[in-house]
């Protein structure tokens, strides 16, 4: 559905997007994960035809030009910054943007109703947007991107600044869209969102894709070993083979097979009072790839 090859975009000496390549299958939910300034939004805006790339190619729904009129009917964008008319009602916003895509009459009403339902705003349809909470505005921002039934939707950090309830609602909405076969490109700096919503994740930093795989693949290839902490009832006898250094009665080690190591300790007759296994996560992956934590950004 989407093929990107060696995409480049620079602002002066700053390379915002530096040789990005990936593809997204039809009906796939794909995440661009990275800290602020990683180049995620710039990549998305180039895909949506808002920005022109300095170099590289994009093939979107079989077409090389995302600014072509026919292609634009197939695309939906929920920008990071809210893009709504505060002086219009929720229904009026949807009606206006629907008409830009040639919707009218019963079909337009049907789409307005459907997207309001999807966003959980059916009972607020005739209220001015200026009276909405931040979370409601976010949901409407997403609904507007969907009113014309696009085949591909670009969601740029759609949960920024929303309350947990609205965040969950947005997650459920995206899961329904994914189940309905919509192709989704999702940018975020929240690892749990990428992990929950997307099949594959591209980790971006400084305009480059550092790794691209499924969650399991990223963890397996870049997460390193699980960290294991074991507390013994007494100091193990001298000569006992241990997988790591002993500090008093506490054993710390890392392993790609932590269960096997633990069962070997139990089989050796050692009395274990407590153990803890920390499996690698996207955070670990990012730490391993960049040398810093995602949350630090």
């Amino acid at each position, binding site marked *: 559905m989407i093929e990107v090859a060696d995409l480049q975009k620079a602002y002066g000496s700053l390379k915002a997007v530096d040789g990005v390549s990936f593809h997204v299958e039809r009906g796939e939910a794909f995440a661009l994960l990275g800290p602020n300034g990683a180049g995620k939004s710039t990549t998305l805006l180039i895909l*949506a*035809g*808002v920005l022109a790339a300095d170099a590289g190619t994009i093939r979107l729904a079989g077409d090389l030009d995302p600014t072509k*009129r026919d292609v*634009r*009917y197939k*695309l939906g*964008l929920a*920008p990071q*910054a*809210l*893009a*709504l*008319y*505060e*002086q*219009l009602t929720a229904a*009026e916003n949807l009606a*206006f*943007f629907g*008409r*830009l*895509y*040639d919707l*009218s009459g019963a079909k337009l009403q049907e789409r307005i109703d459907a997207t309001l339902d999807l966003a959980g705003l059916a009972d607020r349809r005739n209220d001015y947007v200026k009276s909405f909470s931040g979370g409601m505005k976010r949901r409407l921002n997403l609904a*507007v991107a969907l009113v014309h039934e696009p085949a591909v939707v670009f969601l740029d950090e759609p949960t920024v600044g929303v309350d947990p309830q609205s965040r969950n609602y947005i997650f459920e909405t995206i899961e329904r869209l994914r189940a309905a076969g919509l192709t989704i490109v999702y940018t975020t700096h929240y690892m749990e969102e990428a992990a929950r919503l997307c099949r594959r994740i591209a980790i971006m930093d400084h305009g480059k894709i550092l790794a691209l795989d499924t969650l399991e693949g990223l963890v397996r290839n870049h997460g390193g070993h699980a960290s294991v902490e074991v507390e013994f009832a007494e100091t193990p006898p001298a000569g006992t083979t241990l997988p790591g250094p002993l500090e008093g009665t506490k054993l710390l080690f890392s392993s790609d097979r932590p269960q096997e190591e633990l069962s070997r300790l139990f089989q050796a007759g050692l009395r274990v009072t407590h153990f803890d296994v920390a499996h690698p996560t996207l955070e670990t992956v990012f730490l391993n790839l960049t040398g810093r934590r995602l949350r630090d950004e």
Partner: protein
Amino acid sequence: MKAVIALALKDLRLLRRDGFGMFWIAAFPLLFALFFGAVISSFSLGEGRTLALAVIDEEQSAGSKEFVDRLKKIASLRIESIPLDEAQQAVRKGKLAAYLVIQSGFGEGGVQFGGPGKKLELGIDPARRADGAMLRGLLMQAAFADMQELFSDPAKGQAMARKALRELENAKDIDPFRKATFALFIKGLDEFLQAAPKVPAKKGGMNLIDLQEKAVTREIERPRSAFEVTFPQSILWGLMGCVASFSISIVLERNQGTFLRLRTSPLSWMQVLAGKALGCFLTSAFVALLLLLFASLVLGVRLGDPALLALAIASTAICFTGLTMFFATLGRTEAGVSGAGWGIMMPMSMIGGGMVPLMAMPRWMQILSNFSPVKWGILVLEGAVWRGFSLSDMLMPCGILLGVGIVGFALGVLRLRTE
């Protein structure tokens, strides 16, 4: 096209919900027209003009009173009877055009050959030359009416003739030849009057001149009221209000993020700007119609030929819509665009007759005003309302307005495309 209309309707809906913006577009121009119309109405536009004249009758004779009565009957004079010093003060302060003193000996003057005329003193500011000339003419008119009465009433005429003959016989400083000639003439006149029947002056009698007056209406049309001048001006102010409101609409779209959605929609730049322009044009035309309807229904302003009026409104609205679309693409902040819009429109209004009517401007400013679309807008609106323009008169100014509008719109599209 549906998307363009949707964009225009959305902008109109947003404008309708912006009370402050609506004030500048519709209410302010109306207040402007009413205020300046009332102010200008307090000055005369030239028609039905009257001169205030104080008359001090020092003689208080039957003849002087008749003269005053005749002056009072002249429609273009407003006669006030006040003491001389008050009259002089009022003339100095400009409250009266002039004062007239009917001096002692007034009745004796004007009937004696070679003698003095009727004794009058006219006090007037020498700078008021036109008023002075007009007054002298009106005084002559009243004096001639006195002479006409003399010949309409033979008994009165005979008495005057005999009195003149006695004075002539007693006069010592007149050449004997001339004295004899005058005496012969007066005696002949006396005999003539003796034979003439008494005829009321209004029905004929002897007239000094036989003047046939023929009304020739001036070809140059004039406004019937000050509101016919201020309402076309106010429409231009309304259009400038539209410029102010719509020129920032693209910046507002940018600020609220919706510009991004417009960019990713299937609309081209030209369609986006056309949608904006359509909203601006409809608002401009609506405001112009609203103001003119108010002016016509409430203040009796003429609307002229509806087709020419529609052409004038459409041309002016298109011109200002095009300019608005150009201003809208000039900057990226509300302050920048708004400042640029007003910064350009205010001088255009100043030199184009939007503030002071062109007819009141010096010649060099009237020439400079040709560079302002405000001037052409006012001209076509006035042309349709009271100047009595024909279609051919309208073509050139309407063409200029349309040209400016089209160029403005094209520049706006160009600027968006090259962003």
